[in-house]
């Protein structure tokens, strides 16, 4: 749908996740407007634990809606340094605010420059057509 937004200051993956550079070697990860719209009402999010080692492209959690379930992937190699615990009680924020309070986890990438290898907003929206 036309009203779905893809902020230009974020990076994106083929798995429909966004990655934001938080500075100080930390990136924040969530799912895109397209992903939350395709899933429908998100009712349960299973996140990795702080301290977990994650590998780019490998599953590290799940996002479940009333009608389907989708794996959550780590966009980069690194270590999980924070997770959004508020999603336990309010999973619907993934739908209402996917780039804000619906964020999922933060990692400290082992290669700080790896984020530059991800798609920018134009490349991602191009991939949706």
């Amino acid at each position, binding site marked *: 749908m036309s009203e779905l937004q893809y902020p230009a200051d974020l990076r994106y993956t083929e798995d429909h996740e966004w990655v934001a550079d938080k500075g100080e070697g930390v990136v924040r990860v969530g799912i895109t407007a397209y992903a939350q719209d395709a899933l429908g009402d998100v009712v349960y999010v299973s996140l990795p634990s702080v301290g977990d080692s994650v590998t780019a492209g490998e599953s590290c959690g799940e996002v479940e*809606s*009333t009608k389907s379930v989708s794996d959550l992937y780590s966009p980069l190699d690194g270590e999980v340094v924070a997770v959004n615990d508020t999603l336990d009680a309010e999973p619907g924020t993934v739908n209402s605010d996917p780039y804000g309070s619906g964020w999922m986890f933060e990692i400290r990438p082992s290669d700080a420059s790896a984020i530059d290898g991800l798609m920018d907003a134009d490349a991602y929206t191009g991939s949706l057509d």
Partner: protein
Amino acid sequence: MSEAKLSPLDERHRALGAKMADFGGWAMPIEYPGGGVVREHTAVRERVGIFDVSHLGKATVQGEGALDFVNACLSNDLRKIEPGKAQYTMCCDESGGVVDDLIVYVKAEDDLFLIPNAANTAEVVRRLAEAAPEGINVRDAHEEFAVLAVQGPKSDEVVSALGLPVDHDYMSFDEAEWEGRPLTVCRTGYTGERGYELVSRWEDALALWDALLEAAAPYEGLPCGLGARDTLRTEMGYPLHGQDLSLEITPVQARAGWAVGWKKDSFWGKDALAKEKAEGPRRISRGLKLTGRGIPRAHCVVRSTEGEELGEVTSGTFSPTLGQGVALALMLPDVAEGDTVAVDVRGRLLEAVVTKPPFVEVQTRSN
């Protein structure tokens, strides 16, 4: 796959921006924007929702002796009801497997109206037509009638706003007229709420849909898709053919024996079902309620706390009313209500308690 058939309301669904999906060969709305399954589900539980279920089959069986003929084929006993009433029943094969579950509306001894599932209508009609004696005519009327469901505590207000009759007994129906158009108002549904299913002529469906949505607006009623219909029926433990009932899952296993007329002389599958009932089924459908987070889905394996395989989930979903996962599962017969079991959800073992459905209180007969 052949092209999906279209509801008479297809243009309305697309104009509303509904997400469409295939249901038994029909392109039907799953959910509408601004609603979503949870919001639509809640509208039905608390206020009112309008569903297009025109994909459901329609068939007629007419001619002298039509009621006795159908009664000798389908599982439930039509002699328990009178004209003007509807009955839930099953069309079984000789092995006791379920070809389809359906509602039979008795208009008269010689005039029955059937609403089977979309994907099974042709097969039910074929079996009945093949068995029908001379003088009894079985006809597939799938695209002659539309079905709109008005479900929820405010459904009487919405239906009566159109000048239609309301407040008849649960599982009964009235022939009525709306602005000169013939209509059947049935006190039936698949949500567990008080509600109605309106059977109109195919060509009258657009005007009826618009009028119902307008009448529902003051009560904050919503158009509801088949996604919400599925979460609503699962909360009630109502079986869905193809998942909880099938050619492999008999009514005895599905604990739908209440819809079998055991005392009738004959019906399709009687011998096999009576034998299975007497010997005890090898597996039985029971409800599961998850104690923690996570959602069971169809085909998830159910295990005992010791790891023994007990069976599998046939329908599972997130219950918007309870805020937790619920399921129907076919399990070994010695599993009992109150038992704690584990559901294998993609490799994670989630604790569940065997719970008798409905998971949410039934309101179909409430005022």
